[in-house]
């Protein structure tokens, strides 16, 4: 008996391999490269691998457009139009997000603890700070997470789905706990995220087991085939799919599986918050799309009412609770919950325009989110006594009058907020318009109406912040004030890319929309 090597179409996996490979190399860099060289090498590696992934996606798109896509590794990974679009968007938004992660202030401080392992407040921490240590491990961690995210929407069976979920989640748990300031909050957030994430993974795994019990296979194609044949085991299937969806809805932060979001978004280092708020959501929605549109369409009438309900509750809770927030990061966290609801509206449309509208929405939302959190990471408190720049000024009141002192930065933030609010000429508007019209097309006009009402209400807290920045005099509590730190400039590049993308998607959306509706065809 001889071993027959499986035939693997490596080329189709190129984007994933590039990113994961760069992550592995990154670990080696941390182990062997001299301390001073690590940061630049990491940045170069990250940029090159993600740019390479983008190029690979573009090259693969030619073949996929011609033949509709390929199954790789025995159907574990499916490379088709939506996969490539999502991988491209993840690489692009991830790249922009990692620019913010890589940036540091003019006093050479990045957003991460000098030594994340040090007990907060200990002598060791102080020593690490004085020695100027840096946690450069964030780069390989982020790359691993991105690799997992790129597999997530491409997964062709439930096991791959689960593994991708863990590959993307575990680094994020770690990254959440590495904040330089307010470390206890950060570590608490990390712990919560891990516990709840493990809990949600368990649901997903349990659901996968039930579905396997029903279909006798974990392959999507087999499951889809089994689903379309009526059988006595239907309750098994339905319960299983609900549990799988729960695991995924947890990742996108849909109500009622959203509780972790505000705490984690607030506690995590802000660049990481922006990174995961944008990219994780994109990847998770990619996985949901494939599941709903390819694997379980026959269950439409069983599952959809539940998903409608989740969409409605998510939009309403996200919006309503955001209104009463006083912390910018928490407000953006709830806003991202509301956005998950809006995206779900496009998902449940169950039309082909639903797929492309969701893809567009995710791109527009991702760019604006990374940009918005990038700006949050720049706005800092000034210590009352020493005059030193300390933690981020996240209380809403500290943002008053920012527009008068830093008009360009505040203008960019206002643009992102307007995009979140869905004001015309921004990408957010086009995205909302696309998902709502997909819903109307899918005979869900009532859901679109709920969405419009929710986004109208959401305008309130976005505009309140704009008013605060531009039309309120900087009051500030006596003795402390708010400033904008100078950095090496990578953050500004990221913000600039976000601004350009948001405006382009708002002003000239038709090429992108046209491309997406071409690409939104799944492999069976």
């Amino acid at each position: 008996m001889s071993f027959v090597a499986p035939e693997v179409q490596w080329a189709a996996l190129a984007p994933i391999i590039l990113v994961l490979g760069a992550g592995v190399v990154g670990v080696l860099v941390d182990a062997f490269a001299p301390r001073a060289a690590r940061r630049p090498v990491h940045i170069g590696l990250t940029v090159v691998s993600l740019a390479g992934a983008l190029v690979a996606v573009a090259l693969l798109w030619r073949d996929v457009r011609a033949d509709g896509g390929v199954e790789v590794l025995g159907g574990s990974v499916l490379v088709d139009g939506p996969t490539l679009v999502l991988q491209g968007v993840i690489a692009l938004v991830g790249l922009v997000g990692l620019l913010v992660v890589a940036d540091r202030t003019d006093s050479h401080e990045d957003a991460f603890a000098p030594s994340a392992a040090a007990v907060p407040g200990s002598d060791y921490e102080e020593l690490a700070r004085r020695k100027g240590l840096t946690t450069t491990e964030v780069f390989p961690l982020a790359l691993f997470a991105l690799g997992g995210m790129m597999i997530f929407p491409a997964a062709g069976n439930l096991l791959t789905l689960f593994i991708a979920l863990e590959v993307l989640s575990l680094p994020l748990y770690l990254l959440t706990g590495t904040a330089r300031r307010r470390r206890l909050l950060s570590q608490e957030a990390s712990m919560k995220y891990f516990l709840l994430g493990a809990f949600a993974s368990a649901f997903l795994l349990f659901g996968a087991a039930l579905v396997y019990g029903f279909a006798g296979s974990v392959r999507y194609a087999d499951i889809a085939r089994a689903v379309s044949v009526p059988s006595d085991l239907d309750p098994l299937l339905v319960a299983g799919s609900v549990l799988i969806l729960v695991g995924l809805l947890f990742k996108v932060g849909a109500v009622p599986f959203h509780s972790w979001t505000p705490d984690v978004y607030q506690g995590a280092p802000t660049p990481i918050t922006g990174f995961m708020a944008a990219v994780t959501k994109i990847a998770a929605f990619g996985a949901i799309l494939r599941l709903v549109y390819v694997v379980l369409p026959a269950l439409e009438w069983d599952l959809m009412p539940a998903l409608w309900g989740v969409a409605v509750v998510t939009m309403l809770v996200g919006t309503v609770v955001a209104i009463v927030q006083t912390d910018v990061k928490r407000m953006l966290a709830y806003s991202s919950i509301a956005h998950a609801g809006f995206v779900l509206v496009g998902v449940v449309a169950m039309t082909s325009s639903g797929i492309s509208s969701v893809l567009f929405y995710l791109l527009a939302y991702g760019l604006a989110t990374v940009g918005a959190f990038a700006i949050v990471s720049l706005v800092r408190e000034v210590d009352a006594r020493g005059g030193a720049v300390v933690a981020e000024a996240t209380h809403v009141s500290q943002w008053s009058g920012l527009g008068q002192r830093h008009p360009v930065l505040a203008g960019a933030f206002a643009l992102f907020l307007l995009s979140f609010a869905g004001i015309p000429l921004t990408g957010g508007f086009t995205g909302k318009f696309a998902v709502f019209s997909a819903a109307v097309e899918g005979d869900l006009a009532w859901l679109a109406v709920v969405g419009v009402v929710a986004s109208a209400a959401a305008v309130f807290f976005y505009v309140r912040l704009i008013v605060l920045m531009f039309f309120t005099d900087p009051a500030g509590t006596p003795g402390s004030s708010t400033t904008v730190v100078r950095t090496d400039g990578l953050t500004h590049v990221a913000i600039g890319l976000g601004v350009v993308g948001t405006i382009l998607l708002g002003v000239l959306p038709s090429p992108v929309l046209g491309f997406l509706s071409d690409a939104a065809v799944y492999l069976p």
Partner: protein
Amino acid sequence: MTLPAVLPVLAATEEHVTAQAADGVYSSAWLLVAIPLVSAAVLLLAGRRTDRWGHWLGVLASAASFVVGASILLTMLGQPDEERVRDLHLFSWIPAGEFTLDAGMRVDPLSMTFVLLVTFVGTLIHVYSVAYMEHDRDRRRFFAYLNLFVAAMLLLVLADSYLLLFVGWEGVGLASYLLIGFWNHEMPNSVAAKKAFVANRVGDVGMIIAIGLMFATFGATDFETVFAGSPAASEGLLTATGLMLLLAATGKSAQFPLQSWLGDAMAGPTPVSALIHAATMVTAGVYLVVRSGPVYAGAPTALLVVAIVGAFTLLFGAIIGTAKDDIKKALAASTMSQIGYMMLAAGLGPIGYAFAIFHLLTHGFFKAGMFLGAGSVMHGMDDDVNMRRYGALSGLMKVTWITFGLGWLAILGVPPFSGFWSKDKIIESAFATNDGHGWQPWVFGLVALVGAGITAFYMSRLFFMTFHGRRRWSDGHGRSDVDADAPVRHPHESPALMTWPMIVLAVGSVALGGLLTIGDAFAGWLEPVTGHVEHHEPVLPIWLIMALTLVLVAAGAFLAWRQYGAAPVAVVAPRGSVLTRAARRDLYQDDVNEALLMRPGQYLTRSLVFGDRQVVDGAATGLARTVAGSGELVRRLQNGFVRSYAATMVLGVVVLAAVVLAFQL
């Protein structure tokens, strides 16, 4: 000028020449707009770095446009009539499903007339401004706005569809707004800019409705389709379209009832008043009416309203002009009145179109010249605009005096100066309105005739008060011919950069009208656009009209001489008669606007605000309170404990599963 006077005269027909594709030098017409636009962008974006040479870039851009325009004109002159109307396709502008609109340019004798006027006079005024604005730290920005204006104005006249025309239309409005308020650190200037903008917006609504009507009727807004479809459209629709276009025209051209902004617009720097508020932008309304000839051809009522508006504004402006002591405001009133003449001519239909544009052209020269002269006087008089403190400047500012004098003779309509040829034709045509039947020829003819007399009076008054009589200022050595506390002034001639443009414009004021009249050259030149029209017989013999006009003009000028040239002028305006006081207050135009529009508007908004607070806000705050309350409730669930979060999740799973299973049953 070699305008072909020997063109084969087309048969008496309303047929317009159909457009051909632009080729050769015509295809460079886009440069006309692009050059000043790019220059404006450079000057605005590059900021203070271009301060040192920015103004010369502005001059150069305007001059380059003129060169392009002139080369197109020369080509056009060498071609027969039927090849003179060209369409230049630029790009597909709005491809929206079934509706597509291409951005394109219409290069024909009418648009080229404007192109030449705008770029030639514009360039002269650019040159003048280099010296006039020399001490202004924002001179570069000023030139950027001027360039922006030139680009927008050229787009306005070159556009081949109403929608693209509207882009230019708004562009000139914007430039006008920016330039009126150029010295916006002083409140009255900002207010004046805002007033001009708002009045123009009212007109713009007319434009938007007109475009909407065209779109609804013809499914297109380009000239070609609209004009081709007009003969078949219903008269009611065409009348509505025509009236809406007229509303737009009254806003831009300061005609009744939207005339009130022009006087205040004099707050802008004087070169702006000369270029925008005398020579070019304010005549855009006349262009619009003439260009829309085929629409008006099917709407005689709308055309009559155009004539009535023109005739009314003609007298209105002239009467205001008799009482103004501010030299620029007097000139502004005169502009309003002269545009009234053009509007009246345009309202006479095809017989008047050519004369409207002809007068527009000559007026562009002599009025711009006089405005520059006024600027030169102000330059020498420490920016004082009160003519009652002028006097006896003729010897001290010789060039200004002579060039202004030539402009004065031109606007009076003294033969053989430019204004005589153009204005006389309008008066003549007014007497021939409606083929000489009914009341129209008499009313319009007499209004135009009387207007000429009043014009002669107020322009002579202005001229004599400024340059002749006794000096009502002091030269600093206690010498004043009037009173001891006269302001100290040191009048002097302006630098060459300012005088040369005035001289060139003065040459135009003298000769342009006569040259273009030889053999009806100008009317023939416009024929491809306006169509050929047989001359109608006026109700009075032509020689009588001409004689009456000259007598009235002489009488007006003489009266002004007796009152303001020979007799001493009071340094403080006397109380005057009821009419004088009314004219001084612009015939109560602002009071009327306030009483009719502003106050009711304020009451309306106040009551709306009240209703809004009580009803709408009441509901909204109630809703907001509910929302915030439920937000608080949910926030309490967010207690920070992982165990409760996990419990929420489990609860969520149970509910979801229940819902799904419930739907299964």
